[in-house]
């Protein structure tokens, strides 16, 4: 199994936030349900405690750095970008990113087109590439509004898309998952792939922000 040793790159994409209130040390009913189901399944030999530990660690290790690596690679290699737009899953695997059964569709921002992703029905998200989605992506307000008034929603995120740029909203209702290739910021000529990847934020790959050379 391959490991991603590019820790410097990952630091740009790992953030720490406070836990949700009410989580600490109170055994809520649903926390007890999780423990009960997990223990029953271990008792029955369906899973082991080690399976759970390893899977938690696996998801902990997934952050937007994986998607950023794909984007930076595409910025540097136009032929790779074309392959990525044709078949996202294959392109991910081509550079050593295991996406499992994920069917990835990659869409590209251009001077004429801006893309933004949502799952109005639940919270489908390319987790194998970007890690777990942020709370706002799963929220009622985002899921309800971005499909109907994308420009207003993007403006709330501080992203203003001019009227001469077309907005494509992608509602991932079925089996495909989406990644946006943001536009490469100016002033990044001769940058390495690792340096470029640090500019590619999770929010720019969802489409609510641009990649910026701050």
């Amino acid at each position, binding site marked *: 199994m391959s490991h991603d040793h590019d820790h410097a790159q990952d630091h740009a994409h790992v*953030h*720490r*936030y*406070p*836990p*949700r209130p009410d*989580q*600490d040390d109170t*055994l*809520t009913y*649903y*926390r*007890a*349900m*999780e*423990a*009960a*189901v*997990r*223990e*029953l*399944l271990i008792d*029955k030999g*369906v*899973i082991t405690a080690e*399976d*759970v530990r390893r*899977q*938690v660690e696996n*998801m*902990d290790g997934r952050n937007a750095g994986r998607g950023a690596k794909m984007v930076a690679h595409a910025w540097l290699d136009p032929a790779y970008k074309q392959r990525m737009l044709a078949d996202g899953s294959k392109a991910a695997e081509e550079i050593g990113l295991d996406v499992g*059964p994920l069917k990835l569709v990659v869409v590209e921002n251009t001077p004429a087109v801006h893309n933004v992703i*949502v799952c*109005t*029905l*639940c*919270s489908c998200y390319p987790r194998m590439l970007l890690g*777990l989605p*942020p*709370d*706002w992506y*799963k*929220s*009622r*307000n*985002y*899921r*309800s*509004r971005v*499909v*109907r008034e994308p420009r207003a*929603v993007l403006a*709330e*995120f501080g992203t203003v898309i001019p009227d001469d740029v077309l907005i494509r909203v992608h*509602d991932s209702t079925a089996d495909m998952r989406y990644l946006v290739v943001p536009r490469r910021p100016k002033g990044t000529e001769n940058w390495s792939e690792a340096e470029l990847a640090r500019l590619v934020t999770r929010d720019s790959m969802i489409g609510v922000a641009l990649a910026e050379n701050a």
Partner: protein
Amino acid sequence: MTSPVPPRGHHDMGGLPAGAIDPAEHDYALWEKRVDALMALLSHKDRRLITVDELRRNIESLGPEAYDKMSYYERWIYAITQTLLQRGTITVDELGRKIEAIRTREAQRG
């Protein structure tokens, strides 16, 4: 001649009016990460004890009040558990006894 349009599912919210988006984020508690892990392990092709479709259907069946009150991973563990009961992977009796054993254990530790 057309009959009134039926109500939409509470989860089927695309296009409905809604408020400002709260950008605050939270790290997940360990129990929430374990719920996520359970879903990944149980839906894996080596086990196939749940599909994401069953998870979603059970979440959608929660009803508006529960759907809105419960947090994301509370809805998930509810739906995972419902699916395991529906499929017969665990029984209601086993579940009830195990939850009580856990609550007793916690109280004694308390």
